[in-house]
């Protein structure tokens, strides 16, 4: 004897979940749309000399703030459900946003959120403070930025910076590749401290060494030809 009501209640649970997913997805899509324009604006940094970056950064900050509003909407909705149940819906877009924030901060934007204006990046706590979301929650089941997401965002930023090192040379800026080189080598050293298992973080972080090498090659070419300005220390 098979009780049909069992399947009726299963169906209604499945429908409920689908409705939640649809609602979250709608917000994430807006976040993604804004994200694409942020990335597009930030990629102009590759063809803008660093002394003319200010307007680009201002424009990027405006887009990032628009994304921040979407994150607030997302947080309000996601807080009503178990965090890890739906985390997969938005994690990708949140990572993209954080890596845009980091890139913007590295280029000199978002100064008021850095612990120290000379710092090249925002710590996970600073990102959380900027986005107005908690980070690395361990006890409480609520919306937050996880360590893994933060680290993956840093990796995307490193990839973007290695591209920027090449393009800086084209723009006649020979000092920036050296700065980028020393920064991403620091990050690389940090990633080597981690005991990674066979997961996404491992796969992505394996790529950092290629970014480091790419920048080192640029620095090598420059130093070989005595093109590195004296005022900046080779790391």
């Amino acid at each position, binding site marked *: 004897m098979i009780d049909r009501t069992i399947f009726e209640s299963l169906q209604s649970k499945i429908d409920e979940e689908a409705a939640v997913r649809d609602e979250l997805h709608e917000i994430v899509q807006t976040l993604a749309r804004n994200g694409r324009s942020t990335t597009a604006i930030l990629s102009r940094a590759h063809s803008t000399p660093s002394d003319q970056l200010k307007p680009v950064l201002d424009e990027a900050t405006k887009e990032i703030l628009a994304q921040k509003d979407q994150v607030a909407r997302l947080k309000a909705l996601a807080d009503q459900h178990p965090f*890890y149940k739906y985390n997969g819906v938005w994690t990708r877009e949140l990572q993209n946003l954080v890596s845009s924030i980091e890139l913007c901060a590295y280029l000199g934007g978002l100064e008021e959120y850095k612990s120290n204006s000379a710092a*090249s990046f925002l710590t996970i706590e600073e990102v959380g403070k900027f986005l107005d979301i908690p980070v690395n929650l361990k006890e409480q089941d609520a919306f937050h930025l996880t360590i893994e997401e933060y680290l993956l965002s840093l990796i995307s930023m490193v990839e973007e910076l290695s591209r920027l090192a090449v393009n800086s040379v084209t723009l006649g800026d020979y000092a920036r590749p050296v700065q980028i080189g020393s920064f991403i080598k620091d990050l690389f050293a940090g990633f080597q401290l981690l005991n990674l298992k066979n997961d996404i973080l491992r796969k992505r972080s394996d790529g950092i060494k290629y970014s480091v090498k790419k920048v080192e090659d640029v620095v090598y070419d420059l130093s070989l030809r005595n093109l590195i300005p004296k005022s900046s220390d080779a790391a």
Partner: protein
Amino acid sequence: MAGTKRTWDGKQLSLQSNNSSKKDQTSTMAEQSTQILSIFETFRNELDEHHDRRERLIKISRDITALSKKIIRKLNAPLPENITKETQSRFTQIQSLFTTALPDITGPNKWRYQRQLSGAIQEYIEALSFHHYLTTQTLITLHEVRAKIAADVLVTEEDYLLGLFDLTGEMMRFAVTALSAGSVASDPGASEKKMGLSKEQNGIVVDLRELRSLFEGLSVARRHNMIKDLAKKMEVMQGSVEKVERAAYGILVRGSERPAGWMPDLSGGGDEGY
């Protein structure tokens, strides 16, 4: 990481703010290297904890799966008393294994490691529901399943549903054995013309058909995360039902001609799950 900003040689940075810009830059860079390393050390510890938890849960999950499979294999054989006892002790072992998982699945971790435990839960549901069906001829409800697992273990509707899919495979195996064991012949009063399946045999065929139509009636949104498993399970389930239908047909049509120990023809009934 908040903290006092220090130079490479440990002096507080604020005391040196009057230094030349070049020295300032070098010290910021050195400070940044150490800051990054200390941040990553914290991350390392957190990630290590995460991996430890994950591995503990995977181990528990494997043990539960193995025990559940043993239960199912035993249940498929005819059921003398001592086997019931053995099965019962395995169920108890599984329940205590779930209890050992509890410290690792508190707070947000309940859903974080859902995937690590979900396989075990599905296998356990398969065993539970099969046992339940054999003893009561009814389908176990999600509520009854949850009552048989420590309260803080997450049993999702998806686990339950996917466990039921596997149940159909076990029912198929059981039904085919039962059909070929031949209660048709054990019905001595029946003449050839009135020949049919016994009530129990017919019951399981009817139940499987009913299950199949209920499964097929479910509609799952494409964005749902179980959609990947679902198509495959659906196919296997349909195959199982068809096998039983063919077996029942074989018994009915050729029942009287079959020699002792004859097994129904199972070819062409679709793939088996495992």
